[in-house]
């Protein structure tokens, strides 16, 4: 009975591993992000401030890493949650591709949103 399902769901190590890797990126990146924006800059949140920070190459890297890792981690996390509530076989495949497409779109949108800051 289960044989078919088992074979269909071969793989999974990469997603599992990437969830861990992105978690590490997030924990480092988010700590930095929160400290910089909310602790050091508290009370001084303003367009210029943020723009100035975003122009620094180091923060460009951090923010893009955070954006990518965050999107992946969040979507794959949501996928893991949904898998536990009834997605298997074909619907699992469709879910995965759907979320993948959404992730790419979100990353594109995020980049577009960040763009003016970088070029400002």
């Amino acid at each position, binding site marked *: 009975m289960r044989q078919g399902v088992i074979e269909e769901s071969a793989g999974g190590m990469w997603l599992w591993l990437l969830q*861990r890797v992105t*978690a*590490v990126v*997030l*924990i480092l990146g*988010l*700590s930095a992000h*929160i400290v910089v924006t*909310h*602790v050091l800059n*508290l*009370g001084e*949140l*303003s*367009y*210029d401030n*943020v*723009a100035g920070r975003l122009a620094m190459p180091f923060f460009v890297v951090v923010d893009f890493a955070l*954006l990518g890792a*965050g*999107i992946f981690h*969040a*979507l794959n*996390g*949501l996928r893991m*949650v949904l898998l536990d509530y009834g997605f298997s076989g074909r619907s699992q495949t469709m879910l995965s591709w759907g979320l993948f497409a959404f992730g790419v779109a*979100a990353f594109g*949108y*995020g980049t*577009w*949103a*960040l*763009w*003016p*800051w970088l070029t400002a």
Partner: protein
Amino acid sequence: MSQKDRETANVGAGLWKGAGMWAWLFHRVSGVVLALYLFAHIWVISRGAATGAEGFNTMFETLESPLFIVLDLFLLAAVVYHGLNGIRVLLFDLGVAIRRQKTLFWAVIAASVVIMAVFAYISLSFIASHGA
């Protein structure tokens, strides 16, 4: 399992004795909350690109109202718990301290409380100093 089987399945309570179950549930809930927030966040930031400096600063003002700061605190709690428990899970993945999962859970809770206390102090004094 088919629907009928699920219905005849005997759902009981009292499975909540091990800390691991709570740890997982909080992690899952905070994870989903954060995931949904992330996309809201991207959208908010993108408003900056759309409206330019002026609109952005008005938005920040809204965000610095007490209501949003309190909401922010909840969000922060989710991040802090999820992050710390994430480290707990990562340790298990490295094969470390699996048999001490309960102690680690309480450590995560304790650390979360401390961190949140600090943030709450900073935020509340911010609200106080800026007046309502």
